């Protein structure tokens, strides 16, 4: 699962939903732990794996407007909870 949301709170909610289950307990994934590997498209791992020209054309401009460090922190927390489960 690769996310592109710009707000750290949204990223955390989506990452949590596809790993541990819907944190708001309002949707069909409430209490359902899918445990999917989840990344944000701006994370260094994604950048390293992709074609640099494609990344530059498709992502870099949007990335400038994002609080990437906070986004990465949130998505890594969600991923970490799955990896240790």
């Amino acid at each position, binding site marked *: *699962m*690769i*996310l*592109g*949301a*710009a*707000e750290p709170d*949204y990223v955390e909610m*989506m990452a949590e939903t596809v790993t541990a289950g819907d944190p708001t307990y309002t949707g069909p994934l409430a209490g359902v732990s899918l445990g*999917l*590997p989840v*990344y944000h*498209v*701006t994370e260094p*791992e*994604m950048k390293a*794996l*992709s*074609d640099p020209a*494609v*990344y530059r*054309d*498709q*992502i870099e401009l*949007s*990335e400038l407007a*994002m609080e990437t460090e906070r986004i990465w922190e949130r998505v890594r927390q969600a991923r970490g909870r799955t990896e240790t489960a």
Partner: protein
Amino acid sequence: MELRGKKVIAIGERDGVQATAIAEVAKSAGAEVLLELNQCFV
């Protein structure tokens, strides 16, 4: 982490990176994109 040969779901956002862009990046890394969709948190 390795994306080559993996199946990917791309969830974009209207005000962030859109799913089409995520899919292009994933494909350039050798992944197969199963689903692209955009969300809007307004």
